[in-house]
């Protein structure tokens, strides 16, 4: 891989989650911060090893839900009481017990959707193009292999040291990933 394109980072490949976790532990001890792990399925503990804090998605859901509830309630109250008050079967204009259901449904709908879109946003998805995809063996990340990546942006990153550091963790392989133009 002799090319002048800028380096994205070094990628280490493992065949089981525990080796991966071990690797992360080492890397963090060594003071690397711009690191990430790539796994075929959510591996328990990895987040902790990487020191990720609680996901913000929950707030999207919360506020989405509240927005939904308010929309539902306001829409019904306004239309039934102010916009076109009609005597329906002698029921009061503000038949709030009947309104509850739609309020509930909209809470769920808005909460769910904003949660999903929030997740995509936080993950910067969709992102069909990514430097990592340049590495052929990275294909197996969605199948049976576990990868660990130290990005070039990391202040501690230096080609020789980092490379050797990764090699030292006995991975299946270490690859330099480039961000091809």
């Amino acid at each position, binding site marked *: 891989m002799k090319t002048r394109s800028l380096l994205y980072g070094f990628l280490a490949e493992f065949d089981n989650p525990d080796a991966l976790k071990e690797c992360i532990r080492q890397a963090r001890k060594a003071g690397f911060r711009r690191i990430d792990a790539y796994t075929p399925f959510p591996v328990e503990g990895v987040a902790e090893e990487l020191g990720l804090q609680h996901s913000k998605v929950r707030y999207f859901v919360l506020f989405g839900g509240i927005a939904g509830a308010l929309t539902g309630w306001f829409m019904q109250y306004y239309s039934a009481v102010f916009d076109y008050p009609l005597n329906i079967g002698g029921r009061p204009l503000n038949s709030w017990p009947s309104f509850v259901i739609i309020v509930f449904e909209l809470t769920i709908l808005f909460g769910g959707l904003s949660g999903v879109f929030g997740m995509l946003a936080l993950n910067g998805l969709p*992102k069909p193009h990514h430097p990592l*995809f*340049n590495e052929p063996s990275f294909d197996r990340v969605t199948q049976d292999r576990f990868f660990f990546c130290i990005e070039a942006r990391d202040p501690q990153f230096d080609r020789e040291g980092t490379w050797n550091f990764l090699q030292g963790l006995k991975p299946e392989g270490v690859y330099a990933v480039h961000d091809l133009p």
Partner: protein
Amino acid sequence: MPQIFHRSTNAISRFTIFGSLIVIVAVTLVWGGIIRAPYVTEQDVVRDQPVPFSHEHHVAGLGIDCRYCHTGVEKSPFAGVPPTQVCMNCHKQVWADSATLEPVRASFRDNRPIVWTRVNNVADFVYFDHSIHVHKGVGCETCHGRVDRMPLMWKAESLRMEWCLNCHRSPEKYLRPREEVFTMGWQPPIPQRELGLQLVRNYKVDPPQKLTNCSICHR
């Protein structure tokens, strides 16, 4: 060849996803606009008629009262379109031989009605009654616009239900004294709101709760 997509696709894909939300909102609003546009409501659309009858000339020019031709307007649900006879009352003498009036004379001669094109039309399941509106002080102008400025007739208002409701919900905004109903370009001497409220009282106009009953217009 691992990399399937070009870098640009990132931007594109993101735009499509989050853009779609905006699109949905936009479409709703645009649609809301379209169903109110003259294209749909035929508001302000001039219709050509078998005889180019000019309200401008007859109303503004000659100062003929609406009721001279639209005889039913005070006593009947329908204002009524004048019989050929009414035209001939004058046009026996006036413009007795103008080419444009030939269809009128023809109609009178061989007793064949003139077929006009309807301009102000409400759906058939709407039962509008001119007499009561006139009686409660709704001016011709309020719904039909400045007819005295229409060389050929067009629809001045959308005549959509929401438009009707404007007045049925707050008549005071539109009413005028009975004697001014047939006046064109009338201006309220005192602020419309005060006057309106007086008129609503004096003319015993029903409260909105009743005027917005479905059966007031639909049977």
